């Protein structure tokens, strides 16, 4: 019954992803296409026949709706088409180059944020209303308020320029070059998760079932670990969906500041160069990533929460 519940839950949610993705692709596609001027307008000197050639090559001479369905068909087969600016590259190739880098930084940042955030939040909850609690939460609020792009230069200035401990930027898959970007990216998420955990942990610690656990004579450590932790991190689990989106967004800035050749860098470059196919491709690709990760988070939540498991199985 347990497995059946999760399975059904998964199937229902999986079907729910389709309209979301369709809306995502549709909005993104038409937004790009209603842009004043075509993608080759910047290159004004193009002779008409070459221009027509280019348009035909990229199917820009077809009616809009036909282009839309052609694009949709392409995406279903996993093809994002060629890049307008990086002439010899397809968008797929650019994604394949950039995404592993971005995913590594993002994944590490997420792991760091989850571990650190829940630990700090639990700690603050256990010391509720003490000086430690207030200072930790004050710092957490700062972590939420201070933008990535302010933290990054300051970190570079402190640890790289003045102290010389770490490289200021660049990318070679070495841990030294990962430290600063991962920390910068994780910081606001750590802070947010810490606040979230503190709040829910305090609530859980006041619940009747925790009182029961204490009345059983279990050591406080076990009460927290076994009885309080899981319910207290449920809000954190549901936050991980939005957190993914925040990390991906943040990576756009981080990669630029630390000169990391990730997907975010390509995206910004594409945006600045009006590389429509690249921008469109990356938006849709990231949309898919976020939607899929949300779906996984959703499953995780259901798996952790016996009540949902049960309801779905009924």
């Amino acid at each position: 019954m347990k497995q059946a519940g999760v399975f059904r839950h998964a199937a229902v949610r999986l079907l729910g992803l389709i309209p979301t993705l369709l809306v995502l692709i549709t909005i993104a596609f038409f937004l790009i296409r209603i842009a004043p001027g075509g993608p080759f307008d910047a290159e004004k000197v193009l002779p008409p026949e070459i221009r027509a050639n280019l348009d035909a090559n990229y199917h820009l001479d077809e009616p809009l709706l036909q282009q839309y369905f052609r694009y949709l068909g392409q995406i279903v087969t996993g093809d994002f088409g060629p890049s307008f600016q990086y002439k010899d590259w397809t968008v797929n190739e650019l994604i394949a180059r950039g995404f592993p880098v971005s995913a590594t930084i993002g994944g590490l940042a997420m792991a760091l944020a989850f571990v650190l955030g829940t630990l700090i939040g639990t700690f603050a909850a256990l010391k509720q209303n003490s000086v430690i609690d207030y200072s930790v939460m004050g710092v957490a609020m700062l972590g939420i308020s201070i933008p990535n792009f302010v933290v990054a230069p300051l970190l570079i200035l402190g640890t790289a320029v003045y102290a010389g401990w770490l490289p200021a930027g660049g990318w070679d898959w070495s841990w030294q070059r990962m430290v600063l970007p991962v920390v910068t990216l994780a910081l606001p998420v750590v802070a947010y998760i810490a606040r979230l955990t503190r709040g829910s942990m305090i609530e859980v610690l006041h619940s009747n079932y925790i009182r029961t656990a204490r009345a059983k004579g279990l050591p406080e450590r076990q009460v927290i670990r076994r009885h309080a932790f899981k319910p207290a991190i449920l809000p954190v689990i549901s936050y991980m969906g939005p957190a993914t989106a925040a990390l991906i967004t943040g990576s756009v800035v981080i990669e630029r500041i630390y000169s990391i050749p990730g997907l975010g860098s390509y995206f910004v470059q594409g945006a600045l160069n009006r590389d429509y196919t690249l921008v469109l491709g990356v938006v849709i690709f990231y949309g898919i990533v976020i939607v899929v990760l949300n779906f996984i988070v959703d499953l995780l939540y259901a798996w952790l929460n016996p009540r949902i498991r049960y309801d779905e199985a009924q």
Partner: protein
Amino acid sequence: MKPEAETKGLDLTVEDPFAEVFVEKDVRGRSLWLDAWQRMLKNKAAVVSGVIMLVMVLMVIFGPMLLPWEPDYTDWDNTASPPSMETRHWFGTDAVGRDILVRTLEGGRISLLVGLVATLVSLVIGVSYGAVAGYYGGMTDRVMMRVVDIIYALPFMFFVILLMVVFGRNIVLIFVAIGAVNWLDMARIVRGQTLSLKNTEFVEAARACGVDHRAIILRHIIPNLLGVVMVYVTLTIPQVILVESFLSFLGLGVQEPMSSWGALVNDGAQDMESAPWTLVFPAAFLTVTLYCFNYIGDGMRDALDPKDHL
């Protein structure tokens, strides 16, 4: 502090002469807001933040008028000069000799303005959407909320960037674009509140009297949403400021000669090794603002909804 006996005696005579009438008219309303206000005043972080923000707003509005420099004036004698009293560039100058203080205050105008206007945009969309969905309920509600769910799953920051790329960068578009993608939370909250308000006696009474739906929503539902909405407005403003500065930092936001804190941080980050002050001051203004707004929002939430605050 006065001795207890004395204040007790005095209290009666000092009392607001209108208080009695007021109390009779609307006991619940008065005490609710008054209670909230008093709880808010007890929250030191929120009060301090409020005062700082007030000072910040005044500085940003009047500062540039009082300072001896124009934001785009280039002081060729003092390029990239550190903060100093003598040159009268208290925050120093950037690489082309522009005064950082006046530029920071000017940038603050844009940042705060964007924060305010874009929040208003999201407020209008979110409140009307949420109120309608919650009020009509049923199928309407389900469809409307499903739409919100779908949009929620989209990487909205990328859509803002997409909008900027497609339509070019201009300030009105920034307002609309940021506001248009930021209304989802507001819609959800308002819908939830409306659902619970809908079944209260005063709304049912109004409906029984034949008041039409539009009037009920406008006169009875929306005023009662005020508390929640205020909290969310306060929490949305820093988010919006952050999004704008994010865009400007990437070079996709406001354009020269206009500036905002994000754009200034971006400029400063380029020169931070030789002239760190160009980074530090705008960054500090931006961070302090976001920090304060978050504390005010938190304080308001706790004050209006004390059960959340254990």
